[in-house]
């Protein structure tokens, strides 16, 4: 299938996901266009992580269709590899490789997946460490870095693969408050450069200033999806209002 400019770069159509008998996603529909920034929020257990993990096939969906850049996600390993090479992911717990230095973390995938030489990989890695403002930490191991620095290394590691799309799963939730802004700043810069992003986050300031679309999930469903202005000012559903009142109250 040919991908045109008007087609969404990510398309979820009636996606279902089960864990045993438990249905974690119920007929989820979502379209994301190139360059769009989507913020996903919702209560714990509502399926936010599950949804974005389906987009790079860390979870397999049980019903419906998922297309990324025109490639259908199914059992084809080739398709999965193709999608993963377009999609970068940042995790709540950073998930840096503890046995590699910061620069080593960044070099691994370019070397193994893109078959770059050591020198090329290092050059790419240093370029991205500069983009997240920590080139001086290149030779430290993850345990020697602060949480905020670790998460910026993790972002840089994903960027090294030159992805079209970045997925963020609560990237600031594991951070001490004083480190949250340094990670958000990097994300805002990335957004301003035109990256397509889906961010699960409860940083509503970030949603207001950056998002094109704010998605509220509850109990495995997308309850509401709107531009942030509308979303915050007049949420349509009772569940959304309740959730917003809870998280905006502190």
């Amino acid at each position, binding site marked *: 299938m040919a991908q045109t400019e008007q087609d969404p770069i990510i398309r979820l159509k009636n996606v279902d996901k089960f864990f045993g008998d438990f249905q974690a996603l119920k007929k989820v529909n979502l379209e994301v266009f190139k360059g769009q920034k989507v913020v996903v929020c919702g209560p714990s257990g509502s399926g936010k992580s599950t949804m974005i993990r389906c987009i790079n096939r860390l979870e397999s969906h049980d019903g419906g269709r998922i297309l990324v850049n025109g490639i259908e996600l199914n059992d084809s390993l080739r398709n999965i590899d193709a999608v*993963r090479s377009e999609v970068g992911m940042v995790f709540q717990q950073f998930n840096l490789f503890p046995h590699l230095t910061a620069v080593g973390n960044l070099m691994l995938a370019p070397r193994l997946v893109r078959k770059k030489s050591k020198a090329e990989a290092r050059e790419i890695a240093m370029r991205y460490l500069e983009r997240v403002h920590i080139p001086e930490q290149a030779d430290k191991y993850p345990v020697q870095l602060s949480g905020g620095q670790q998460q910026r290394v993790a972002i840089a590691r994903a960027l090294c693969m030159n992805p079209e799309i970045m997925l963020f799963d609560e990237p600031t939730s594991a951070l001490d408050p004083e480190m949250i802004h340094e990670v958000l700043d990097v994300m805002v810069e990335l957004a301003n450069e035109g990256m397509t992003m889906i961010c699960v986050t409860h940083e509503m300031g970030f949603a207001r200033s950056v998002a094109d679309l704010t998605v509220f999930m509850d109990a495995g469903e997308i309850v509401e999806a709107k531009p942030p202005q509308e979303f915050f000012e007049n949420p349509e559903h009772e569940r959304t209002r309740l959730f917003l009142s809870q998280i905006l109250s502190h």
Partner: protein
Amino acid sequence: MSFDIALIIESVPKMLVGVGITLQLLFLSTLFGTLLAIVTLLMRIGPFRWLRWPAIAYIYFFRGTPMLVQIFVIYYGLAQFEFVRDSFLWPALRVPFWCAIIAFSLNVGAYTAEILRGAVQGVEKGLLEAGSALGLTARQRFIHITTPIAVRLSLPAYGNEIISLMKSTALASTITIFDTMGVARTIMAQTFKPYEVFISAAIIYLVIVWFIQMGIALAERRFGRYMKR
């Protein structure tokens, strides 16, 4: 009770001949046992289901029976079978030294396979997901993420296993091998002074353990640089 210090001083050098054998038993069994453990691990956790059962059965038998029994079965038992005597293994199986090596290696292999499996399972799932998300294949994840982390995680238990093997090598003396313990038993038979002789042997084993501990600590530091803040 008289205690003959002079005999201890006299015995230790004599036993050094046996120490050479002890170290050979230790080194060769560690080497073969570790290789066997890696093969067993790969069978155990690899993609081929039909390879799992032999690995599980092997681990079960060698962890579930006393080492002394295994040594006797290999040394005395196998010789009964004609096909064993006719086989290409016979030149090794008739030599007590190689029987001991085989028994120890099989034992180390079984225990170490389980140590390694625990370490592999101890690698955080999130790290492998990060690897998948970056596009690494299962094989690349195993080689570049699981293996280095699992090696570090397994070192303390692996060190214990080597120390435990070192002590078990004394069982080799039961099948006429003159390792440290074998020599000690000979001296004992000549002098009838068990305390002095076996204390000498204990001292020798303690010295060897000390070196093993140093080696393990060194390896832990080498592979664990990244754990230091």
